[in-house]
């Protein structure tokens, strides 16, 4: 099978494009300049939003950089916890999938907002798990919430492909 034949297979084309976009985007965010100018300030915004929600819930939460703390518990939001990874995977999936530009735009904007909303719920819930059930914090953080966030991202992609991408492609 030559490259042209491989490229004509939709699954191969999707996987190649998906990996290429994912590879480029992850390389870009790994650059120190991009990290300093975009990733760290972005994570700090997520921390401030989490702190705001916790204050709405009555916590005496303060935010310093990427650390959300209160007298009861503190969480540090790292690169893997800011929703950026899931967002980049979702965006790669949307951009690699055959669909109109308008459908892709809807997917990217709607998906980013939805993933960030889910991520805020994750951070706030992890804060309360840390307060109420600290012995389960690691389990909740690593395999429950990470799996949930990935599954949520994939569900959003399926919803988008079903509602916005495929009908237009078939027409």
């Amino acid at each position, binding site marked *: 099978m030559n490259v042209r034949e491989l490229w004509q297979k*939709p*699954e191969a084309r*999707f*996987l190649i494009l*998906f*990996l290429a976009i*994912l*590879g480029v985007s*992850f390389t870009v965010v*790994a650059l120190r300049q991009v990290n300093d100018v975009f990733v760290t300030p972005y994570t700090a915004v997520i921390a401030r939003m989490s702190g705001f929600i916790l204050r709405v819930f009555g916590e005496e939460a303060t935010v310093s950089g990427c650390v959300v703390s209160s007298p009861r518990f503190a969480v540090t939001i790292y*690169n*893997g916890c800011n929703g950026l*990874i*899931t967002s*980049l*995977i979702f965006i*790669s*999936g949307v951009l690699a999938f055959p669909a109109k530009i308008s459908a892709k735009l809807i997917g990217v904007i709607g998906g980013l907002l939805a993933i960030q909303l889910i991520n805020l719920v994750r951070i706030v819930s992890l804060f309360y798990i840390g307060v109420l059930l600290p012995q389960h914090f*690691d389990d909740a953080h*690593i*395999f*429950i919430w*990470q*799996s*949930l966030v*990935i*599954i949520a991202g*994939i*569900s959003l992609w*399926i*919803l988008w*492909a*079903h*509602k916005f991408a*495929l*009908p237009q492609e*078939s027409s």
Partner: protein
Amino acid sequence: MKNATQVFLRRLPMTLIAAIVIWLLVRPVIDSAVAGLAQTLIRSFEYPRVTRLVIEDHRAQIRRTDLRTDSTVRSVSMTEVTFNTIVLLALYLALPRPFSRRQLERLFMGWCVLCLSQSINLLFHVKTLYATGLGEWSQHNYSDLARNVFGFGRYFTDLPGRFSFPFLIWLGFNWDVIMKMLRVSGDEDTKQKTGSKQKKKSVKG
């Protein structure tokens, strides 16, 4: 929303819980298999063969037979390396007829590929530790190029790999099923519409 997609999305929360239970049950086997394969891969390119990966309390302890016995033992969390098995299992189980022979074969193949990716992730963790984390010994035994290659490999197989591989493997092995699932309603609608038009025509005729 079409039926098959709706059923899939409805099943996902339940299959996620089932996948977590299965993963918790088979976790010791997965830990050993992934660490065993990683150790074999590391030792394949090592002379003398000194690396041993020992699983203890869901952490892979990195031991070298050429180090003193009182040396600090570094370890890698196997929970972080293998948790994405949950995602792959949940996605497979949510597809139509998950226990059919064809789907079980695909699950087995997909799981094997995921285990390989997890072993490669662990390999990069160990090699990055050797290349960057052991002070003068690292400087003496590894070049700058090796440090960059292993660091790059670790970065890509860590968060990007762990998060995206289950999705890619699931999609790659089940492309026909997933596309059918996504389009089923559209096709059915089209069929229903054309079917009803034909009926109307035949009634008129």
